[in-house]
């Protein structure tokens, strides 16, 4: 970048050489300067749009196009089949099975996660010793990798000699079949998700709690409201926008759940099946299985679009539900 271009706008008149020869050179510089002022913003923002158009927008629309085909990469098949894939999707028991799994895991994970996060944030919001230590400790799980977490927890959840069944056994609980039972496998995967994200959500809540005016609580204390009452009647309503934000973020993440269940299916040959009975196969795994393992890219794309629509619908439902419940109080 040359810096000797003198922008004309607001700039001082160019020094002596320009005075001696005011003609073409000055206009040339002025033009460049104008080009700089006008063009630079577009140049600066263009990298994002170029990357997004090629690798974001185009794939999204192209997914729609692919979903209207019988599309195989190995054989080169590309037969236009219209809405056949969508037709099939509606009656595809495997797809709906995966949908139930995904929503089940998502519910089991999200509800306790956000409640725990609220509790922890409320505790972190007190004046205490070593607050930074506690905060850093809460988000340590975030910096571990998802794949690593899944591998470690899969060992902990092992039915025969995993640490969790051993621990429960101390209280007389029989060994739980964490991976072969449908419901328990959902719980195990939800625990992995929650372990990673609870602290993150707690910090987000904490940030919002710190912005709540303290005199609200003092007034409530004068009126004799207990801490628990203050929590439900002041803290939670004041946090409503933040809660909506975390619910939507959790929804988007939860419906796309992939890494944890893939690595949880440690004893099955096809890791995308989510166990021998597909007991914890999520929608994303089903999409991946269809496209990349079975070479049914057309149908995989259909599943991807169904997931996208589902994410939007769920985000809207959550948004409305949280707003409604907050509004009535």
């Amino acid at each position, binding site marked *: *970048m040359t*810096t000797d271009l003198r922008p004309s706008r607001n*700039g001082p008149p160019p020094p002596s050489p320009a005075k001696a020869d005011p003609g073409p050179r000055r206009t040339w510089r002025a033009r460049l300067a104008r080009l700089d002022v006008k063009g630079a*913003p577009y140049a*600066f*923002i263009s*990298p*994002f749009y170029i990357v*997004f158009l090629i*690798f*974001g927008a*185009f*794939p*999204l629309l*192209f*997914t729609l196009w*692919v979903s209207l085909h019988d599309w195989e990469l190995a054989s080169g098949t590309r037969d236009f089949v219209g809405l056949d894939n969508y037709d099939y999707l509606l009656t595809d028991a495997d797809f709906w099975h995966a949908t139930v799994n995904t929503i089940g895991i998502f519910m089991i994970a999200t509800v306790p996660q956000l409640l725990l996060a609220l509790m*922890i944030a409320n505790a972190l919001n*007190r*004046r*205490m010793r070593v*607050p*930074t230590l506690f*905060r*850093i*400790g809460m*988000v*340590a799980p*975030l*910096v*571990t*990798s*998802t*794949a*690593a977490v899944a*591998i470690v927890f899969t060992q902990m959840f092992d039915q025969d*000699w995993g640490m969790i069944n*051993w621990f429960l056994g101390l209280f007389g609980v029989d060994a739980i079949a964490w991976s072969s039972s449908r419901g328990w496998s959902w719980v195990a995967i939800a625990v992995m998700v929650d372990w990673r994200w609870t602290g*993150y959500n707690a910090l*987000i809540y*904490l*940030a*919002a709690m*710190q*912005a709540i005016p*303290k005199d609200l609580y*003092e007034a409530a*204390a004068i009126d004799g409201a207990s801490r628990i009452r203050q929590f439900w009647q002041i803290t939670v309503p004041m946090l409503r926008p*933040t809660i909506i934000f975390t619910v939507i*973020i959790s929804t988007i993440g939860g419906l*796309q759940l*992939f*890494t944890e269940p893939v*690595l949880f299916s440690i004893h099955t040959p096809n890791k995308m099946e989510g166990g021998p009975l597909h007991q914890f196969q999520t929608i994303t795994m089903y999409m991946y299985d269809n*496209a*990349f393992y079975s070479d049914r*890219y057309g149908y995989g*794309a259909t599943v*991807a679009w169904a997931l*996208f629509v589902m994410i939007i619908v769920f985000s809207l439902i959550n948004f409305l539900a949280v707003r409604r419940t907050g509004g009535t109080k």
Partner: protein
Amino acid sequence: MTTLLAGPGRRPAGKHAAAPAGRFRGLWNASPLTYLTLLVALFLSIFPIYWMIAMATRTNDVVADVPPPLLPGGNGGGNIERLFNNPDAFFAKGLLNSVIASGVVTVTTVFFASLAGFAFAKLRFRGKNGLLLVIIATMMIPVQMGIIPLYMIMVELGWQNQLQAVIVPFLVTGFGVFMMRQYAEQAVPDELIEAARVDGCTTFGIYWRVVLPALRPAAGVLGLFTFMQTWNEFMWPLAVLNPDNPTVQLSINNLANAHFQDYTLMFAGTSVAVLPLLIVFIIFGRQIIGGIMEGAVKA
């Protein structure tokens, strides 16, 4: 959207409750129950990480012991040696690939996002609001959505199993642009930009000499999180890279896929895969906390 960066969390962490007056003091002090809650949460947060590292230093004959082994052993070096010599994991290559991919993506994301963020916050141009809306909308679109055609693009380009396939699509994110824009708006005074212009700076010169230094704190947080995110990416590398040219996450997946499950080897792998992030975290823990509390991270 307002929760993303506006409003909450503007107060510096740890300085809340500026000594409430007299009789309300007790309202804000942590009770023993508070400490108990936090200690339990802290234990649950840290224990799996501790246990992973402890198991990475044991030998395989103790993994099935009852009660389960909890203390570290003396076989850490041996396990790491086996890890790098393992013929299925391609662990050294995976580490190198991850360092390159995460490093490149981090640098380009911070550069392009701060450049665009500066333009959106401080420059005047036609169509600005509409273009910004597009960016916000893209933040809602999950990346995985386009994974199938993305793969087809890579096939067309001949980038299957090439490292650039996990780099180029992620050179800059809408989230990064939006975050830098929010920060630039309040961190860079307009007068400073005008002064630089009067002094004869080009627009890029203004960015390089005035804006970028002022954006450094936000750029640091964005860089940290971009690095973490790229390092942890699993699904897309799994789709486009082969097991013999992995990222570090795929390397540990290779270990987990082996017919004979070598547990201490897997734990050594996960420990080494997590270690760079843990080091970053220990050095920049405060900034990461600040970043999350200002809404700088996307889940």
